[in-house]
């Protein structure tokens, strides 16, 4: 059974600073409703749109990253339909058959399947810049039955990239991997923060064995990309097995129930009355703009970044773990540029530090949860000297560092083994009864001894496991020397 999937991904340019046509904020999360609004994004009579430079720069960088044909100028168009969250009752977009000119045509995305380390590719049909409408909330009865609709216009006018692929994708898993990779690329381009709530939506078109395609709308998470497509393929196969025919339709993904449902009401007018927006003369894409965008795009070439890491013989899983978490990659680059050993640093960040972040429930995407490069540099050097076993570093120092990334390394490093021997000896001499108890099988006594050692050492960091090990060794070896 041949599956054909095409995707339409809408991503908010949450890092663009301002909305597409006015100075209200591009990231509206956390604001009180209807406080991020102005005459332009409310479509008040007489208010006029003016295109934001930053949005165009970021969109252009995206086009370059997707290896698109770059136009000499872009043209915005109006798409008319009536909906409460669309204040002007038209959306400003870039529809080609209306006379619009998109920011990208005929690109291609190469995306990675990290677990198999396979690169796949998918053609990009076009990328448009357009404005987001506001957000509608329904009361009891939901979208089909709520007596009233409540609208928040904070989101109205936020800049969106609409990225449309050719139907080159063959499995739901590939679709998910593509979206993940694309979002990561956009994060590196400084276009968006993929983890913000509602920052992207995916519509997928899927057909089986060259049959009619069904559009599935309202996919709002990476996991749902795969889930929704799996469901839809199953649904369609069952119909065909039973002898039925798939008709072209649009369906709505219900993430709660895990099913796709037909869209009952035609919420969308078929006639959009497209024409170029008279308030927005075409915008030139100059050589200078392309040069500037290229600088941004180069920083987001994930394939090149991964190659760089692999050149140092870093295992691919570590390389991917680092690159897929941008603060880790940023840190890695800095530490290596200061002279850190790439393999050691890579392992430390990709496995140990990231793992500990997870343990402590901290957000790996928050740069403030990562330490400064000097700390990691020192730590990496420490592992190479062998002064501390890797276990100590991984088991003690790193967890402490994760709890307090800005702490100075000296405060995190435990006592050198030599000093520890002396203290252990001292304690064993003093705590004769405890030693006796331990030898008689009371394992609790060992804990007590560990505590005595820690107390004697004072405020300096110690690894209790090392102490325990030393105590056990000494006790087994024989009575303390007097």
């Amino acid at each position: 059974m041949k599956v054909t999937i095409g995707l339409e991904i809408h991503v908010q340019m949450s890092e663009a600073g301002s909305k597409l046509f006015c100075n209200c904020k591009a990231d509206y999360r956390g604001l009180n409703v209807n406080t991020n609004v102005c005459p332009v994004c409310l479509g008040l009579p007489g208010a006029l749109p003016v295109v934001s430079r930053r949005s165009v720069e970021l969109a252009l960088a995206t086009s370059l990253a997707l290896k698109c044909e770059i136009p000499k100028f872009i043209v915005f168009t109006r798409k008319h339909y009536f909906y409460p969250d669309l204040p002007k009752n038209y959306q400003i977009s870039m529809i080609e058959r209306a006379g619009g000119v998109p920011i990208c045509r005929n690109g291609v995305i190469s995306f990675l399947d990290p677990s198999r380390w396979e690169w796949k590719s998918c053609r990009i049909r076009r990328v448009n810049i357009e404005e987001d409408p506001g957000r509608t909330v329904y009361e009891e009865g939901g979208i089909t039955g709520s007596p009233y609709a409540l609208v928040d216009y904070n989101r109205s006018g936020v800049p969106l990239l609409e990225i449309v692929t050719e139907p080159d994708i063959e499995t739901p898993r590939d679709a998910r991997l593509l979206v993940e990779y694309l979002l990561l690329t956009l994060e590196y381009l400084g276009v968006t923060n993929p983890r913000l709530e509602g920052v992207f939506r995916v519509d997928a078109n899927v057909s089986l064995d060259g049959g009619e395609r069904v559009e599935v709308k309202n996919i709002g998470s990476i996991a749902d990309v795969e889930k929704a497509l799996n469901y839809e393929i199953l649904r369609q196969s069952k119909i065909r097995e039973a002898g039925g025919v798939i008709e072209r339709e649009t369906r709505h993904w219900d993430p709660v129930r895990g099913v796709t449902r037909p869209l009952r009401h035609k919420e969308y007018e078929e006639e959009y009355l497209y024409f170029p927006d008279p308030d927005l003369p075409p915008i030139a894409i100059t050589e200078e703009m392309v040069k500037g965008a290229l600088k941004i795009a180069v920083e987001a070439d994930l394939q090149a970044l991964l190659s760089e890491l692999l050149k140092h013989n870093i295992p691919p899983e570590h390389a991917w773990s680092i690159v897929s978490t941008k603060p880790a990659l940023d840190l890695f680059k800095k530490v290596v540029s200061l002279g850190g050993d790439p393999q050691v640093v890579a392992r430390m960040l990709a496995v140990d530090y990231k793992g500990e972040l997870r343990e402590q429930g901290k957000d790996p995407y928050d740069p403030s949860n990562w330490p400064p490069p000097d700390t990691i540099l020192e730590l990496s050097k420490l592992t190479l000297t062998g002064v501390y076993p890797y276990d100590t570093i991984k088991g003690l120092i790193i967890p402490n560092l994760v709890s307090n990334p800005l702490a100075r390394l000296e405060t995190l490093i435990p006592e050198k083994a030599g000093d520890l021997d002396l203290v252990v000896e001292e304690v064993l001499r003093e705590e004769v009864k405890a030693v006796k108890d331990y030898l008689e099988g009371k394992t609790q006594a060992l804990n007590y001894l560990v505590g005595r050692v820690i107390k004697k050492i004072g405020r300096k960091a110690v690894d209790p496991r090392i102490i325990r090990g030393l105590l056990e060794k000494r006790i087994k070896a024989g009575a303390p020397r007097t």
Partner: protein
Amino acid sequence: MDFREGIEDPVEHVFNVFEAIRRWEARVNAYISLESPDLIVEEVERIARGINAGEKVGKLAGLLVSVKDNICTSFLPTTAGSRMLDPYIPPYDATVVKRLLEEDAIVVGKANLDEFAMGSTTELSAFGPTRNPWDLERVPGGSSGGSAASLAYGGSDLSLGSDTGGSARLPAAYTATVGLKPTYGLVSRYGLIPYGNSLEQISPMARSVRDVALLLDVIGGWDPLDATSLRVDKPRTFTTSKADPSKVTVCVVKELSEGAEDVIERAYWRILKKLESEGVELREEKLPVASKALPAYYTIAFAEAASNLARYDGVFYPTKGGGSTWEEEVELARMKGFGREVKKRILMGVYALSEGYRDEYYIAATKVRRVVRDEVSRISRSCIIASQVSPILPPRLGERLDDPLKLYAMDVYTVIANLAGAPALVQPIEFYNGLPIGIQWIGKPLGEGELVSLGLLVEELTGLAGVVAG
């Protein structure tokens, strides 16, 4: 103006204007809303004190300006002459209004207009028609009829109108006032409630060419809030001198000179011949595409209107539908809020843009537009184009309303300048049986200075500057 040369006292001037309003306004209905007289007096007294103290005051200090009610003011309702926006108080001022206030102008009130600027007679306002002070049974032209009428009876010194297809120029011709449609993009549209947004400009109107130039210099120039605004400095036309006739070439375009009533044609040729005798060179030109300009203009205007008026769905605006579903609410609000002509134009615009008709109507019209623009640009490069303004004398109320094409036909000479983006000036040349007749001059892009210069020469010949209805 006068008082700045020490002739009149600004406070006394304001009371004279109030008196004119008291005498005329009830019959003429030029205004939809008037600023509180107390506030005006307070303002003018402040200005007078400043003048007396030798302080620097704005270029428009103490002048009373009427503002067409499709231009947003945050201090007076802005209705666009429509039930839909009655009363809507914008939360911001149009850029041109800000510029007026920066120069110490006083906004005396919001002038009546055809609803959403759609009309040529100012009979289609939700607030009643405006009458022509020169003959109260006749229309003042439209859609900036309130602006023109307020000037004509002395109820304002200056006025801001708007011109999408002749809406500032036709009223000027019918009221013996002066109206200038600027080069497209010279004056900011931020705050102008849009009708045909690729065609229209806010237009300075006054009783003399010099006053129009003064007003243009204040309101014109680049505005970063309007992406169609030209990146040029503020115009400097007020100090332009009267044209030297021997240096002026006027192109008499055949298609723009023929087809008017005899009386008008005779007046037209009289002034042209007079100019010729003063030394102006007259040259014949042809503009064959002109015959298609009117339908091309209306196609584009209707399409843009349908789009620009889609936003009026009752949500942010005073006229609500009272419906129980979203669709019903929108349909009823638009049924109640819009007048018949507005509905007509919206439906026609939807038709012109719909799949299957777009090529035949909208796209075709934009192609004709390119030819009009290029031809007008070509001709106006080397001369000022002479043109009629109106095919008829100011009609009586009701005369043009029984057939839509009769209404649209009034714009036959004026739409060319909107399609071409060219500046165009209209000024009075004669009276016939007490009814004003005007002439239109079309210039090259950003050629307002030359139009003003010629206008000053014509004024000298006609002696009609500053004329006010008795």
